[in-house]
């Protein structure tokens, strides 16, 4: 790459489109040329930044559609550090100041939407609630393991959603009073933690069993089932049996080998492993067959 960065930008002319040529290809080539120039500028800027108080990020990059990103790689970003900065703040800074094509999901910035679970320094975390000050440098940011990468830090969540939907995660009782149903404080307390799940996928991504068995319901879905199974407002015997049957199938609760990795990474501190064990107990008590 040329190290001579021109002072001023060159004029560009708007071009008329020659017919027949692959539009997309041409566009890509042109963009690549422009990019090279801008990369040089950014590189110079980044070297300057590296001298100030900054945080060094190593970010996974991949895009099946862009030639120089088809081979996965890591990019270095140096982000100026301010007190209280989170990993998400740093990613946003890098995207907005250095490389607009840096892609990741995020929305609420406050650990409730579950969009920005990633693999940060070798562990599943929500970037928005991970303080940079607690991370060793360089901070390595990768997409969630065991899931197909769509682009950069974005993974395909479809399978995760399928598993969640497989446990029939909804109230099914048709028999309701006119006013509210009663629920004891104790019972609400019992299901409280399980209702905090934000569907971020950190647990599923950390689970060795899920990695090796694509049909395994996984900790998030089983926890969702727990939330309904344990809710006293829906205690019809038939329904509970029905829920247990889903859970005790071959790829259900019995696949769990209590490694606790899901519990360890859950950003909402849900005792996932414990919930799975409780459901195993229920299955045994119910005297149904297990595999």
């Amino acid at each position: 790459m040329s190290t001579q960065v021109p002072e001023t930008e060159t004029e560009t002319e708007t071009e008329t489109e020659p017919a027949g040529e692959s539009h997309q290809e041409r566009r890509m080539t042109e963009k690549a040329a422009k990019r090279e120039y801008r990369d040089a500028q950014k590189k110079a800027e980044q070297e300057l930044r590296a001298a100030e108080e900054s945080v060094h990020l190593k970010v996974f990059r991949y895009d099946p559609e862009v030639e120089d990103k088809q081979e996965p790689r890591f990019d270095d970003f140096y982000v100026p550090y301010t007190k209280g900065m989170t990993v998400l703040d740093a990613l946003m800074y890098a995207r907005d100041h250095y490389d607009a094509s840096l892609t990741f999901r995020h929305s609420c910035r406050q650990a409730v939407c579950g969009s920005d679970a990633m693999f940060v320094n070798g562990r599943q975390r929500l970037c928005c609630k991970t303080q940079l000050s607690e991370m060793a440098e360089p901070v390595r940011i990768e997409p969630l393991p065991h899931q197909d990468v769509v682009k950069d830090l974005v993974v395909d969540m479809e399978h995760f959603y399928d598993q969640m939907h497989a446990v029939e995660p909804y109230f099914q009782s048709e028999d309701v009073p006119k006013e509210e149903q009663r629920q004891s404080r104790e019972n609400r307390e019992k299901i409280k933690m399980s209702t905090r799940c934000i569907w971020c996928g950190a647990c599923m991504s950390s689970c060795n069993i899920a990695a090796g068995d694509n049909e395994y319901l996984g900790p998030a879905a089983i926890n969702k089932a727990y939330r309904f199974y344990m809710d006293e407002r829906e205690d019809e015997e038939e329904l509970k049996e029905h829920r247990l049957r889903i859970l005790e199938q071959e790829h259900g609760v019995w696949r769990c080998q209590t490694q606790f990795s899901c519990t360890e990474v859950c950003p909402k501190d849900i005792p996932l492993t414990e919930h799975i064990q409780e459901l195993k107990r229920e299955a045994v008590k119910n005297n149904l067959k297990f595999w």
Partner: protein
Amino acid sequence: MYEHDVIVVGGGGAGLRAAIAAQEEGADVAIVTKLHPVRSHTGAAEGGINAALREGDDWELHAYDTMKGSDYLGDAPAIETLAQDAPEEVFQIEHWGMPFSREEDGRVSQRPFGGLSFPRTTYAGAETGHHLLHTMYEQVVKRGIQVYDEWYVMDLAVTDEETPEERSCHGIVAYDVQSGEIAGFKANDGVILATGGPGQAFDHTTNAVACTGDGYAMAYRAGVPMEDMEFVQFHPTTLPSTGVLISEGVRGEGGILYNADGERFMFEHGYANNDGELASRDVVSRAELTEVNAGRGFEDEYVMLDMRHLGEERIVDRLENILHLAEDFEGVDGLKEPMPVKPGQHYEMGGIETDENGHTCIDGLYAAGETACVSVHGANRLGGNALPELIVFGARAGKHAAGGDLGEAQIETGERGDIEYDETELPYQPGEVGMDTGPSGGVAADGGAVAADADAVVEREVEAQRERVSTLMERDEGVQHSQIRADLQKTMTQNVNVFREEEGLKQALRDIREIREAYQDVYVDDPSRTFNTDLQQTIETRNLIDVAETITLGALVRTEFRGAHWRAEHQERKDDEWLKHTLVGWNDGDPTIFYRPTILEGENKTYEPKERSY
């Protein structure tokens, strides 16, 4: 082209509720959302859901509190509908499994909230919105309602008759974020906009990064007036570093505010002698800033919110989420220390003008939730009234769009009926600047020739959006959206904040004009069609510009102090002149401002504007 009876844009509280209601009415429904539904910002709502459920409370009290809170700018039919429908809707979501906090006898708990004469705020810890969102999404899954998640809706497909009131909406154009495919969605019965708030127009906001006012901008450009946009709620308790919301529930449970001199200023400086910390939000936000401006703030920026005296047991039981937020985002242990708080942009009272059935002045176009303005909240929303708004008006819009009968609406919409036009001198002509990177001005120009053919209307809009994307992608230099968005947030935060002055508002309008011009040279750097967030944010930024302009226009023309709208030069509420809604119409890029009187006649009584004190 995809086709459904009813298409709901947005998968938050209002959108999910609308979809369920439309499906119950027998329609084939689809939800199109740029996120996945469970990622919607309804999930971040903390405090609760107001509903008159108990002995000693009734819907009329709820309506009265809401009207008073609105500083008499809410419309009585809308407010009374909210208060009447809320109890039923709350029981409905409870039946669907909402894990409400409970009383000893197993009934749903309610707590005091700002501006309420009765503790009627039902809640689920300090994470009510999260549970509401998930409970409703569960019902969507149960019903097998189709969800196009991570599809970004770019514009509406609307016919182009001369006046908006003659137009019809036939669908939307969206692109699949994951693949870049641009597609038309035809709606046989109606499109419901439920896209949430515009918080990203400000730099210190409780809103998510996704709250970019898409619905407002699309409806606006299609010809629907934006109503009362100048009324922006600044929540009094947000964390200074991030804008993360600390629920009003903290004050509802007994938390106190104090300044750097240790004074409980709400009482000691006379801001609200009766209700103190539990005055309405506009009052508390102004009080805090007044303290800071008088040099009695901490670090010239914030005040303290203290809940330590409530005791660990109660805090963990009812406000546990607040402990996590204070710790994760401010490094403060709420059990041992007070929490720093300052006002932050939180909610837009105004929005897409609708009647109490969610219908806009364009046939087949509906709106519900924060993006709509019915108007329930008038000049100031009470805490705990946003979530019932989502479910009450989401359900109504869904039902109505699917052909259900809700009776005749009492609220008029569009440029008709009892309206008057504004004559204010503006510092420049707002609106259109050579729209080559914009949407097609909302509607194409063919004099209504294809109005009868819904497919053609959608197809034409698909073409227009394809062209727009090509233009943005082909440019390979210019200015990036992140710069434009930062400039916009800066001027809005500086000039259209809690305290507003005429010169500042004019400056904001001039800045927005420059920002519009800069947007003509915006380009998308990322060449990829796969998950191109650069492209998405570029389009969102255009929407924010339009929304910010309507907010600022409204703020400039309304020369009085009402609710959340405080003007340096106009320190009193002027009921003789201003008991009316501000409406801004796009008018094909040459915005018009007009007014419609507020409706104070309710079912059983007429609401008399009184001095508002807490």
